[in-house]
């Protein structure tokens, strides 16, 4: 008896649920509602899929552009520099002398070292910094192009002021009282040597370094750091100066330490690394790296995919109800005919 009461009670509850669900199904299955509903849900699903695909193609095709920042630290025995404008900064020189040529104003008559002076390298020059012997920095300057294009450098010291129009070499000495040098460079900068099989002299090498590429995230444009410890001994690093993008940095050397340390920064443009005896390669970020690092992009893609799944499910449900209702209305018609 208890069971039957229970049954009757559950039976009535069930019939209530059944009534509600049939009312709901009847409501939406009216064909004038299923069709537009299916269309709306389907469109939203397609829209969510489009967002997902946009995110995917963004990660696949986004290249480094004018927003990309390169932050590079390098240890090298050789750095080559070509200033990009008349406004390039001056360099402070201490404890130095001119090696060649003999007749310019950078000359202390007694032949000893000059205490202090300032030199400004001009766009017609290419400058090479090397440390050939410990604590001796050699600065070689030559014309950038074969045809002489004007002054290479302007020099000023306490007693002298002049321009240098032809190739020259300066040697600077680090001592236990003058233990450091620091040069500001703005223009095209490279570190290391592009290795070849030449035997006229020994090539100077880049020793070590790392580069961080800082790009902007999808839509939110927050900074993303792609850290790449990808500079090894023998590499050749080029940071050229293009029309709107230039490299700037500092080059330093210390008493009794090997080589130079360079800290360079570039916003926009390209940076190229040539591994020993290989083709030059422009720095790039793979699309996988981008998706893994760019949390905003990953968020957009996963949310849009989730929405797509929900909407697709709802769309198929509505379509099923429509099919069910059309078959059930068919059944109703058939049963009516049978009764008749």
């Amino acid at each position, binding site marked *: 008896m208890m069971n039957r009461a229970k049954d009757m009670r559950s039976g009535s509850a069930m019939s209530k649920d059944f009534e509600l669900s049939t009312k709901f199904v009847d409501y939406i299955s009216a064909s004038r509602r299923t069709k537009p509903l299916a269309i709306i849900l389907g469109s939203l699903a397609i829209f969510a899929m489009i967002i997902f695909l946009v995110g995917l193609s963004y990660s696949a095709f986004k290249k480094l552009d004018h927003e990309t920042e390169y932050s590079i630290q390098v240890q090298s025995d050789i750095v080559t520099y070509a200033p990009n404008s008349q406004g390039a900064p001056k360099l402070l020189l201490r404890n130095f002398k001119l090696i060649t040529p003999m007749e310019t104003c950078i000359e202390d008559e007694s032949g000893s070292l000059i205490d202090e002076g300032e030199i400004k390298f001009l766009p017609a020059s290419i400058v090479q910094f090397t440390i050939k012997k410990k604590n001796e920095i050699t600065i070689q300057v030559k014309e950038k192009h074969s045809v002489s294009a004007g002054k290479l450098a302007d020099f000023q010291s306490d007693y002298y002021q002049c321009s240098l129009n032809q190739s020259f070499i300066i040697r600077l000495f680090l001592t236990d009282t003058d233990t450091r040098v620091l040069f500001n460079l703005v223009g095209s900068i490279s570190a290391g040597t*592009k290795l070849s099989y030449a035997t*006229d002299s020994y090539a100077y090498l880049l020793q070590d370094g790392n580069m961080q590429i800082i790009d902007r995230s999808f839509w939110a444009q927050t900074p993303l750091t792609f850290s790449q410890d990808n500079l090894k001994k023998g590499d050749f690093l080029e940071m050229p100066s293009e029309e709107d993008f230039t490299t700037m940095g500092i080059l330093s050397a210390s008493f009794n330490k090997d080589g130079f340390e360079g800290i360079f920064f570039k916003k926009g443009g390209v940076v190229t690394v040539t591994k020993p005896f290989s083709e030059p390669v422009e720095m790039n970020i793979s699309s996988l790296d981008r998706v893994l690092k760019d949390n905003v992009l990953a968020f957009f893609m996963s949310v849009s995919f989730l929405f797509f799944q929900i909407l697709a499910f709802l769309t198929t449900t509505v379509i099923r109800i429509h099919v069910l209702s059309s078959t059930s209305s068919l059944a109703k018609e058939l049963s009516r005919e049978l009764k008749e």
Partner: protein
Amino acid sequence: MGSLAADESRLQYELKHFDESYVQNVSVSGSILVSFMISGDSKTASPDALSIFTVPEVKSVNLQLTSIDGRYTAEAQLAIEVEKAGWVEIALPSKYQDVLKRYKENEIVVFAFANGKDKRGRFVPIVFPTSWGEPTFEKQFFVLNSNGFAPNFIYNDDSDETKQGFCLKMSKKVTRAFNYTCDFFDQKSSGKKVVTFSPSHDESGKRYEVWFSNE
């Protein structure tokens, strides 16, 4: 006097030795010291028509050919007999004629030399100019491989004045075998001169004896 007629030049040289290799994927480089090239009527490398300037006192000339990417290298030794200084056209029996013709005239260089000695008994290479096809004398240039910052050359011209020439970096992506060209503007020069090539201004250079021809 221009190059000699083909049948005459065949009598005047004998290819004693010719060894070449072309490796597609691995760049093994030959070694040139200093190549002296003169522009020729062939705009591409033409091993079947290579002109060499030579002199009666030299009986044997060595050739080293290298492509700029290091893929092609060749060595040859010629026994040459000429009555007076002039140009001889030779044909190298290369298996890679089609491959070589794809290189431009300054992408494969020829180092033609004989071994000489200076007054102190030190070895000095004697360098002969070469050209692809018949020489047109529009341009004369040296090609070398340097690690230096400002490779340059010094010589005394016909009036015994010391002249200096500078070399420009070749702006090609792959430059393992050679990376600098140095234009030689003294077109009227002739005879043998000592030319010293240095990697930069403050480093000592290497001496070569170079034969110049202006006709």
